[in-house]
């Protein structure tokens, strides 16, 4: 039965997240935008509240650390962890994307662990805050080209290489590192390893200064003969051309809608505030007259609202499919592509519409317009999402449609 509203059982959580955005994130939003690299200590308290909320939820809560594909069950529709996470995170990011990204135990590494870890690993790492290290100085979107190596040595692996753009790389308790166990075997040999903070040979070498999401630390990490037990390898150890890489890539089916949700959140913030400011100028967005009979300004707001609503529904759809065990690769990429570009467009357009009010730091609008850019880049750029969608539709391999 078609029902495209926020489900009743999740409205409490959504309201709670909204309150958090308003009362926890917004008041400190500018502070940590200015004080880049300062740790937002307010978040420790919040993380505890969040854990309490999660553990109280009947079906296991929300958050990156819980994301996993649901089981297919035709008899009953599920609104589970994936949906809870996207709905909650969209609200939190309506408060602040940077702060949301630096929430303890909500790293993308947690999503990877949740997706592929075995029971023993879940017990060891489940409650740790885990960052994700994929990108290297010489490879970004082309994640199959990672050069960081993991060479087997007895019961350990020895990791060598350099990772950049590790979100929460300094603050997290552990980092999930992508490395190749054999450079000659191509992408099937890429495995992910959990490296705990303090492991000898692992060192945070620098923190990026960025355009936006300054509250979130983005680290460069180098690995020099960094020894990790083989029990820290996520997934299967064997190099299998059919399964290997696609296994690691599968995490993205769960995390892309999550990033899409973040984009939806920040775009919502911009539109809400813009409408408030326009209202003070006597311009009501009332959906009364067809856009072409009104002003250019109102037409622009209608367009943005329509695009945002589309991004929101696509995101929830991708999460809904994950919850119900339906393969959602294409929908995950669709949600990410749409939400990423729409959020960037909306936040920038709002700055443009409001003149110096939008451009100056008295309002958060200019910040949101800086924060939003990353959402169309990380976890797969706009162009990568389009490639994935096109390859699927056209039935093309990555060597045919490059």
């Amino acid at each position: 039965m078609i029902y495209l509203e926020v489900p009743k059982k999740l409205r409490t959580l959504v309201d709670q997240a909204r309150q958090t955005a308003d009362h926890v994130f917004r008041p400190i939003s500018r502070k940590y935008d200015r004080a880049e690299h300062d740790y937002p200590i307010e978040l420790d308290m919040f993380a505890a509240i969040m854990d309490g909320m999660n553990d109280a939820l009947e079906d296991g809560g929300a958050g990156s650390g819980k994301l996993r594909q649901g089981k297919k069950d035709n008899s009953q529709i599920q609104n589970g962890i994936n949906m809870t996470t996207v709905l909650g995170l969209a609200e939190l990011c309506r408060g602040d994307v940077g702060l949301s990204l630096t929430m303890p135990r909500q790293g993308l590494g947690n999503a990877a662990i949740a997706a592929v870890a075995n029971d023993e690993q879940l017990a060891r790492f489940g409650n740790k805050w885990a960052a994700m290290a994929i990108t290297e100085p010489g490879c970004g979107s082309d994640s199959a080209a990672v050069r960081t190596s993991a060479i087997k040595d007895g019961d350990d692996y020895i990791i060598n290489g350099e990772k950049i753009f590790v979100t929460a790389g300094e603050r997290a308790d552990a980092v999930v590192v992508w490395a190749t166990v054999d450079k000659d075997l191509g992408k099937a040999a890429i495995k992910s390893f959990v490296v705990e903070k303090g492991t000898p040979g692992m060192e945070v070498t620098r923190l990026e200064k960025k355009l936006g999401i300054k509250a979130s630390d983005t680290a460069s990490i180098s690995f020099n003969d960094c020894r990790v037990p083989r029990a820290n390898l996520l997934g299967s150890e064997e190099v299998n051309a059919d399964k290997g890489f696609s296994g690691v890539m599968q995490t993205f089916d769960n995390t892309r809608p999550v990033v899409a949700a973040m984009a939806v959140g920040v775009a919502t913030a911009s539109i809400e505030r813009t409408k408030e400011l326009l209202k003070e100028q006597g311009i009501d967005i009332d959906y009364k007259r067809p856009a072409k009979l009104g002003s250019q300004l109102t037409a622009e707001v209608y367009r943005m609202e329509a695009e945002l609503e589309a991004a929101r529904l696509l995101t929830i759809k991708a999460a809904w499919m994950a919850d119900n065990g339906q393969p959602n690769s294409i929908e995950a990429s669709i949600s990410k592509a749409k939400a990423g570009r729409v959020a960037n467009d909306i936040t920038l357009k709002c700055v443009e519409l409001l003149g110096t009010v939008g451009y100056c730091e008295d309002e958060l609008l200019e910040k949101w317009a800086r924060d939003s850019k990353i959402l169309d880049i990380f976890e797969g750029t706009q162009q990568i999402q389009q490639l994935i969608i096109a390859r699927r539709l056209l039935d093309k391999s990555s060597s045919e449609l490059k």
Partner: protein
Amino acid sequence: MASFSFGMKLQGLALGLASRFAAHPLVRKYGLAKPAEKIAYISTKKGFQLIQKGLAKKSQGNKNGIKALPSPPPLFDLTLTDEQQMIRDSVKSFAEHNIRPLALAADEQAKLPESLLQDSQELGLNYFSIPESLGGAGQLSPMTSVLVAEDLAWADFSLAFAILASTSVTNTISRWGNKTQQALWLPKFCTETNFNAAIALQEPQPLFNSDLLTTRAKQSRKGYILSGIKSLVPLAGQAELYLVAAQFKGKNELFLVPAKAKGVSFTSTPAMGLRSAEVGTLKLDKVILDKDALLGSGNAQYKQFNYQQFIDSSHLSWCAMAIGCCQSALDYLIPYVNERFAFGEPISHRQSVAFMIANMKIEIESMRLLVWKAASRFERGEDFHRNAFLAHHLCMEKSMEIGTNAVQLLGGHGFTKEHPAERWYRDLRVLSIINGGLQL
């Protein structure tokens, strides 16, 4: 709900306090953070469980001891009902076999295929909404209607418009007509012989606004007198009944106008697109109508005619048809760009081509979700004006873009009648033109 939202406010306040507490330098200095976090965890967990329990109780409490059928909790869901799936399958199959093969010639000749309206009766679209007591199925379902509209238009936009013209009228009378009007008109749609009808709403002036109709109705001693001009009316003047939108006593209303009434005349005025629906101009020159002509007159409050809903739901019909048309464009283009070679490889191997295909898919999905959301809200009796407004806005922009790109992807061939793309290009423009004219 009141106590609940009060609870939420308290929680919001507490969150703000907790956050300020956490940032306080003394808290850090004296190591108070950890114990406080523990308290925060426990109290939140407890409070949250209580709220959830309260919600659960409230929903049980509504039953007042009377055992009702257990209704499933409203969960976000994109699954069609079995019935909707069945209807979809049969409409799709009819569309593919009985509509699509006729589309090209019908457009070329700007002519409705002779037996199409009669043949499409077998789908039962017209009496779907008609009350059972009058011979129909008693199923007025906006959600199912958008599915049907999409699937028909997947075969051909213009012919779908023609087929849905009468259905729109039965839907409108079933939803808002009074007892007399329903008994008078609806059984005519349930017989073997084809009875055609159409809505007449557009007016031929630039900047037409459906809220400011120039067609006027005046009260007369025995009924009403109607005057005005309506454009983009389908069915070549073959309709036997028109639902005409007109201003009456400062309000926008619909009037049931028999085509035979004196002063009603139809002239063919072909347009850029929708040619096979044989659109034309309907002239109403002091048409004298009896007292039963005003749709829904004398209805109880809850069943009173709602012009805004009428317009909104019409937009959704058009949107759904646009989606069907865009989907057929995408279905057509995928094999084409894979088979068309340039520079020694399929043109689909070029990102500039592949990304256009990807974007079509993204926007078709976008449009569909907005339309489904609005239609399902309408079906449940919830306010859906904003949803329909935004759906129309999005569909207008995206479907026309897809119509343009469909021709572009086919290159010079797309410009010729060798491919259907040039027809989609013309038909899809109507999305920015219309303001009513159909009804879910």
